[in-house]
């Protein structure tokens, strides 16, 4: 039985499907014509704050954002 069936090149390089799919989507968005390109890029902007917890206490949150810091 082929338990190590031929894997796609990106999985062999350690990438997950989600990462692959998001990279493809970003590349397509960057190749759009003008009004659609800005629409797509604004639609996909993300802004979130992420805090890792250690020993029951949150550490300083890191803000990840596409909007420039004010």
């Amino acid at each position: 039985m082929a338990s190590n069936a031929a894997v796609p090149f990106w999985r062999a390089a350690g990438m997950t499907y989600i990462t692959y799919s998001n990279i493809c989507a970003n590349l397509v968005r960057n190749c759009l014509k003008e009004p659609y390109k800005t629409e797509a890029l604004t639609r996909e902007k993300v802004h979130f704050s992420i805090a890792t917890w250690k020993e029951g206490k949150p550490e300083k949150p890191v803000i990840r954002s596409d909007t420039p810091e004010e």
Partner: protein
Amino acid sequence: MEPPKTPSSFMSPRPPTPSTIPSKITVNFVLPYASELATKEVDMVIIPATTGQMGVLPGHVPTIAELKPGILSVHEGNDVTKYFLSSGFAFIHANSVADIIAVEAVPVDRIDQNSVQKGLAEFTQKVNSASTDLEKAEAQIGVDVHSALNSALSG
């Protein structure tokens, strides 16, 4: 006393497979931010599966297909609508319903030729100069996507 209900008794049963092949397939084409086609009845869809362009007619054998960057064409009578998909999946059910999901899908006339050529040149060059496996994989993805965009524009 009635026996307790099991979780599967709360689920709606699988839709029955019709005994005669329906004349049209029902397509649900969805994106994360919009549903492009919702239960639209069409004659045929051609999906860009990783194994090649796959034509889906009513009565197609149930299939789960992973999609590669390419063109999805929806044929209804004499009209053909083409979308370029970035990647996704297609589920074809026994009752001739096709669910196609993609992350990005654009009509082919929204693709900018110059960015595609530039991107293709840039990533071909990156494939040659990449050092780690991951960089090589990313550059290869870039080449694949841009070549698919290129053939979409010229095809």
